[in-house]
């Protein structure tokens, strides 16, 4: 697998099926949620008479359920799945070698070393924050849904939350965290391209095939 040209000679199965499926489900759900959410937050004037706000809100809520299921499956997999997808991978700073890898990776991203570290501790930390963002969006989203009317168990479920935070501030958090997740998307795609290029690991394709040109060190 050495050399600046040519494909890797050996492949490693790094992304198991639940990881890949939930990744792309998250992508689809999140972009649907962001687009419909931007409309719900600041709807534009229209010329045609269709109940568009009704449709957009319906799609938004449906995508919210998809994200809820996808994140729930990924969380489940973090406890029963392969080692690379384990919840432990998201907290490398709890281990000595994890902290060392993080420093090496940060040196690479800061142009202080040439060879890519071929580990993803810093990335995993950022992903733990993203999953926290997903959880915040799911909680605030369904909480706001409970404000909008009678939805069975939702209202009593979120009453303790609203005892602490007013609905308008829950809505503000819902919007600001969406923007952080959009900013993460920009950074995420860039780092994926950068590592695919520097590592020559077929990282981009691996998110579909599951196979990468070298083994990830977790």
């Amino acid at each position, binding site marked *: 697998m*050495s050399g600046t040209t040519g494909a890797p000679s050996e492949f490693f199965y790094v992304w198991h099926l639940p990881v890949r499926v939930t990744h792309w489900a998250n992508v689809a759900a999140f972009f649907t949620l962001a687009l419909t959410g931007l409309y719900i937050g600041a709807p534009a004037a229209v010329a045609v008479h269709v109940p568009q*706000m009704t449709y957009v809100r319906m799609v938004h809520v449906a995508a919210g359920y998809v994200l809820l299921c996808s994140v729930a499956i990924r969380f489940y997999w973090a406890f029963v799945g392969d080692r690379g997808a384990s919840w432990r991978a998201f907290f490398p700073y709890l281990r000595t070698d994890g902290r060392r890898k993080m420093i090496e990776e940060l040196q690479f991203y800061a142009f202080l070393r040439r060879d890519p*570290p071929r580990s993803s501790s810093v990335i995993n930390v950022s992903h733990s924050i993203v999953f926290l963002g997903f959880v915040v969006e799911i909680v605030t989203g369904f909480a706001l849904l409970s404000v909008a009317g009678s939805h069975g168990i939702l209202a009593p479920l979120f009453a303790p939350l609203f005892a602490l935070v007013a*609905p308008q501030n829950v809505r*503000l958090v819902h919007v600001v965290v969406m*923007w952080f997740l959009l900013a993460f998307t920009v950074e995420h795609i860039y780092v994926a391209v950068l590592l695919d290029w520097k590592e020559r690991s077929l990282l981009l394709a691996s998110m579909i095939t599951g196979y990468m040109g070298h083994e990830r060190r977790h």
Partner: protein
Amino acid sequence: MSFAADSLDRRTFITFCATMAATLALPESYVPAIAKALQSAKRPVLVWLAFSDCAGCTESFLRASNPTVSDLILNTLSINYHETLMAASGEDAEALLSRTVGDDRGRYIAVVEGAIPTKDNGVYCTIGGRSAIDIAREVCSNAAAVITVGACAFFGGWPASRPNPTGAVGLQDALRGLKVINLPGCPPNAVNITATLVHFLTFGEMPDTDAQSRPLFAYGTQIHDSCERRAHYDAGEFVDAWGDEAHRKGWCLYKMGCKGPGTYHNCASVRWNDGTSWPIGAGHGCIGCSEAGFWDENTPFYRRLPDVPGFGVQTTANEVGLGIVAVTATAVAVHGVISIVRDRLHPEPVDPPPPSAGKS
């Protein structure tokens, strides 16, 4: 005493009973029951306490007309104590209150208007030398029923708004464990106050409430769901600026910060000032005055979202968010350019060591 014969003709009285039945969402067959209860009621005693308030709730209550609520209720109830309405003043007035609490213990209705300051032993609201919380504790704990009127008695209202220098709270926070019926609003609607009293006189108990002790007949439906402009919301037809074409057409005020979504009140159906109009009907968004903390939490009233802490009041959450994405995009673009330029100036070795032999 039977008040109906005194000041009202039968038709007006029955019309009032029908209005009350409709407001309480009772079937028409309850109208005779209400009429009978009001005519045979033995003038239940009512005391109206006013603490940190503006008397706006009293004003709202007295402003109803045709027939006037005061005619109906003042003649049905024996209002023993109400600072704004009573003739007595000073020690005579306070003597009336203490006599009521003593003589009618467990039989009178206590209505509380205004917030209760708790800071510095409640010194910021005293009547006859006694603090509001002291009076409220004695009067409310001996009452047959306790009703709070207005946002202030509900959660503290304006006096409790930031920075809340007097430590004002609503009645249910001042006297924890006390069973109350809350009729929030700034002000509450006279129809709802009257209907709650009529319900108590007719059935001998208070109406069913939500988790915040607000009667469901008045606070069970979201304004957004009963709003006459709701169809414009569903169709994506919104007012963008005060006085624009859409505003003149009566389209939805959602983008102008209307808090109808998330506010539970029956304004859209019972309206105000004898059903004349109501805020959204008059072209102004709802400010959510029947929800807890509305002054602090629902401002700015003319914006969909609160201000983002740390940014100016002119900056919206979407502008802040767009800035976050722009900064991120710029950062990765700079990183990418540096990566490419460095590779051009200092190409990587042709054959880098395999990863397993790396120094790490």
